[in-house]
């Protein structure tokens, strides 16, 4: 058992990546480049991939549950590539309707059925993470027209699209730029993305040199999320130190003495420490005079609210 203190960072041990792009661009090959990979082949396209490793061919959801519950199951694998997540959701949908036909009248999910699908997919990916697996979701792309603008998104049906985008820590679009294959995690007005690591677009290496590409990227992504968590924890500690100073300030003069220092704080701290001081002073009955931009003794006539900035 490990206890993480309230002001400590929480590591993200197993990030979820979503990569989408055109058919044939090499997404399944990337799926095999994760560490100790198992590719769940929902799309029946794995035979076209290079650098092939272990593959679970999925016809029905029973293939997945049977494999996960059998003998060693997922134990030998560090990473699970879901190829494609759109087809995975189709297979999951068929299983939901098979189990509970009233959730899928005429073969299409009812509103309640969509809710069940979203919950079930979320639970499944959470289970994979809790088993210590990195998860790579692969999707085809889908082009929507917005006026004259093309917007490319992962091809995932209905309400499941939002669920997948919620779950994914990283979302990257794989496309051709001239003769180069490029993987870009940056959101633009032409495609969706998530880029917690702040990566520049990657030119993908030739297939023969890409055997550990995603393994490396998942490690870097894990490190980036860890850095984010640590950075936030550091600011939390600074915030808590300020809280102590502020709550020890019981007069207008003491509150005013903090203002010059607060004004020099970085953008993430300044607004919250400023608000913390104003809220504290108000609760302590120390009014803030907006025109003077200073706290005044309670006897003076001033409004008890405002901003230091």
């Amino acid at each position, binding site marked *: 058992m490990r206890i993480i203190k309230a002001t400590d960072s929480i590591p993200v041990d197993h990030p979820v990546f979503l990569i989408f792009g055109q058919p044939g661009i090499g997404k399944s090959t990337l799926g095999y480049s994760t560490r100790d990979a198992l590719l769940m082949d929902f799309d029946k396209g794995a035979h076209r991939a290079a650098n092939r490793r272990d593959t679970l061919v999925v016809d029905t959801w029973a293939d997945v549950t049977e494999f996960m519950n059998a003998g060693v199951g997922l134990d030998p694998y560090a990473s699970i590539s879901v190829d494609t997540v759109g087809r995975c959701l189709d297979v999951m949908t068929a299983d939901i309707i098979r189990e509970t036909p009233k959730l899928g009248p005429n073969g299409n999910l009812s509103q309640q059925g969509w809710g069940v699908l979203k919950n079930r997919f979320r639970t499944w990916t959470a289970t994979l993470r809790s088993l210590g697996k990195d998860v790579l979701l692969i999707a085809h792309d889908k082009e929507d027209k*917005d006026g004259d603008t093309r917007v490319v998104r992962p091809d995932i049906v209905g309400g499941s*699209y939002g669920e997948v985008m919620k779950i994914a820590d990283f979302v990257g679009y794989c496309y051709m730029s001239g003769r180069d294959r490029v993987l870009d995690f940056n959101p633009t007005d032409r495609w969706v993305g998530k880029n917690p690591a702040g990566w520049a677009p990657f030119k993908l290496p030739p297939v023969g040199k890409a055997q550990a590409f995603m393994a490396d990227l998942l490690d870097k992504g894990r490190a980036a999320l860890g850095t984010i968590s640590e950075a936030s924890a550091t600011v939390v500690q600074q915030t808590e130190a300020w809280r102590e100073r502020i709550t020890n300030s019981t007069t207008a003069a003491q509150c005013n003495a903090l203002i010059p220092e607060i004004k020099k704080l970085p*953008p993430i701290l300044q607004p*919250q420490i400023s*608000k913390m001081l104003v809220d504290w002073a108000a609760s302590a009955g120390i009014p803030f005079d907006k025109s003077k931009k200073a706290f005044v003794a309670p006897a003076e006539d001033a409004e008890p609210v405002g901003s230091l900035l």
Partner: protein
Amino acid sequence: MRISTTTLESFRLWSQPDQDWMTEESLIDTIRGKFVPTPAVLLGSAFGQVLETPEPFKVDGGYRCGDYTFDDATMAEPLALIDRRGVFEAKAMRRYGDDDVVAKADHLYGAHLSEFKTTTGYFDYDKYEASCQWRFMVDIFEPVKVTYHIFRLNDHGNGVVELRGIDSFDLYPYPALHQDCAELLSRFVSYVTLRGLDGLLRQRQADAA
């Protein structure tokens, strides 16, 4: 000029090539600060007030704010999402050239910024992701992460509000974010200048100085 992120988001939405639900008159009203809240906005505002400071709104079995009632079961999960050590409604400003953009973060704790949104419809990830609001929030407050909490509500038309679900997701800074913000702001400044609304926004900047 002094411009709010909500005004910039209205401009961005109005500028979308295929949109036909927002008139230019409505956009200009927003820029001028004329705003008539819709029932959905009033519901969101009431919910937000309870989320921020529940105690003043406590009544037997739940919370009441304005014309809306939220029972304990509806508010339990939303209230549990919030780290009470953080601050609500923190304001900040960033200067872009000669212009000031002002923003208000729903909740800040450490380097983590959270935005609370309500909808009486369905969850639409792209609607929130495409928004310039979180981008300006990131550019102005410089958090490491923005978390959106979307509360799907139903007031059944009688003010008794039920929580249908919560959708939460994280968004992150990216290298071209500042440039995206600056470009949108530049288009907005050109537009208000063309429409003769720049004086109003300059006056606001002078008043705030």
